């Protein structure tokens, strides 16, 4: 009896989180699946089971199709670019030079403020008018004409990716840096004695030992990239047309603004599956890679 009472006393500690988590995460998740099979419009209580109709409708909805395609493009491109830039940057920031602390802070700082704010600032830089900051630089330095950075479909996509790379590379470089600093210096000394050049040391010691950091960084970048909303929304409002709409923006648009709850829920469910599949695939692949390398 005493034991049971003690047991109960322990379990009480779990109650708050279980209530909150169930109410605000699990119940809505189940409800999303449920709503995606109905024609619920947010108001009328008289709604019907429509089977997979909403899921079929997804593929004929322009906003949704371009939302999925842009979000995937953004997630893949920004992940690849940031990873390719962050690793060399981390190696550079690990060297001993006079302004290294200033540079570390400078690269890391953009990850502190909200992405919305940073993207608004970049909206000013990429302003399409001839006196816009970036267009002025292009004209003065390269003699190029004004480019519609945020209103041309391809340039708008490129711009969002550039801003994301600018904002996040430093953060991921610091993540790699933390792993770099845990590599024992003896490894490099031993390699140097054996006659390995600086580049060989990076290729055969640094990069393989960074594999676990890469798994984490790529996982965060991919899942973060799939959930992206603020940067494209602040830069282009999702335009031109639906070109830079993200999945999140489409869910808000179709679901909350237009109250097509069924359709938006179907989109949410598909999004859930996309994130799940990509994240599982990436982590399994990269953990196998870790084992192979080490």
């Amino acid at each position: 009896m005493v034991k049971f009472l003690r047991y109960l006393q322990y379990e009480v500690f779990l109650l708050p989180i279980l209530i909150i988590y169930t109410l605000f995460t699990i119940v809505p998740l189940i409800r999303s699946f449920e709503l995606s099979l109905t024609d619920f419009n947010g108001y009328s209580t008289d709604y019907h089971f429509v089977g997979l109709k909403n899921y079929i409708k997804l593929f004929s909805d322009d906003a949704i199709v371009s939302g999925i395609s842009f979000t995937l493009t953004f997630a893949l491109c920004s992940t690849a670019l940031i990873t390719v830039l962050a690793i060399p940057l981390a190696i550079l920031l690990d060297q001993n030079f006079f302004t290294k602390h200033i540079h570390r802070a400078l690269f890391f700082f953009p990850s502190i403020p909200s992405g919305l704010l940073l993207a608004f600032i970049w909206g000013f830089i990429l302003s399409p008018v001839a006196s816009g900051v970036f267009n002025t630089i292009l004209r003065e330095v390269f003699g190029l004409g004004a480019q519609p950075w945020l209103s041309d479909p391809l340039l708008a996509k490129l711009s969002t990716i550039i801003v994301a790379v600018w904002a996040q590379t430093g953060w991921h470089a610091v993540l790699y840096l933390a792993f770099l600093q845990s590599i024992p210096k003896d490894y490099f000394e031993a390699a140097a004695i054996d006659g390995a050049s600086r580049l060989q040391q990076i290729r055969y010691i640094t990069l393989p030992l960074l594999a676990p950091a890469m798994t984490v960084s790529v996982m965060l970048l991919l899942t973060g990239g799939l959930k992206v909303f603020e940067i494209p929304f602040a830069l282009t409002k999702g335009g031109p047309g639906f070109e830079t709409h993200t999945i999140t923006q489409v869910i808000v648009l179709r679901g909350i603004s237009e109250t097509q709850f069924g359709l938006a829920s179907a989109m949410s469910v598909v999004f859930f599956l996309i994130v799940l599949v990509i994240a599982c695939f990436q982590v399994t692949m990269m953990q196998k890679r870790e084992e192979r390398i080490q």
Partner: protein
Amino acid sequence: MTGSLKRSWILDILMLPVGIVMFFPFYLIIVNTFKSEHEAISRPMSLPGEWVFDNYKQVFEQTPILQSFSNSLILTVCSVLVMVLIGAMAAYPVVFNPNRLNRLVTLYLLAGFMIPFQTTLIPLFQLMTDMQLVNKLYGLILLYLGGAVFVFFLMMGYMRTIPKDLSEAAIIDGCSIWGIFWRIILPLLKPITVTSIIFQAMWIWNDFLAPLLFLSSRSNATLVLEIYKAKGEFTVNWPMFMTMTVITLVPIFIFFILMQKQIVKGIVGGAVKG
């Protein structure tokens, strides 16, 4: 020695242009707060021809920036404190009284990592409307508490490093389960608490989507939401908008300078464990 000294100077010079590119956007917003509307558009990159200080005064007069600052502060502080508390509480039985039920609960909670906020958004909107929690700061606080799952995960990892003898000795001394948590375990969690607070505070302070959907009136707007709304109003008045941005960035910058070590350690540590 001379060799390494020489190399360091080369890197300083090599990194300089990259550093300038990183800093350039911040230079732009600062310099344009001291310009007139016309000059910001026509000569965005140069230093102000005539220094204008009126923008700062006007932002405080024309926008509810102090109100939104205090909204953000209330929202962040309350959410994070409760989140850390219930996250730590949940980790306690899981680590110190492991049994089959608790293992199931752990799995149930960790599944939350795989559920994007966007997937639950439509039903959440409905739920918040039904419970009349829309446009209320405490409604949004309740919503954010779901983030306690991440705190739970960090706490669980850290708590495992606390020796079990500690709580067993306390039980023998007649301390209750409740007392052990508050008097012995909680004070020992300080390092991981700092990590959790930094991680979660930055998330909530910077969040845009949830305030956009769940806080409709201007008087309840968070700082980020207020900037979004101001951007709509000041469409062409860039100096005003930039001034507002600078005012927002100053406290963040001070926080960053003061806490740089903890922030880097906290974010990176949290990410690696997450």
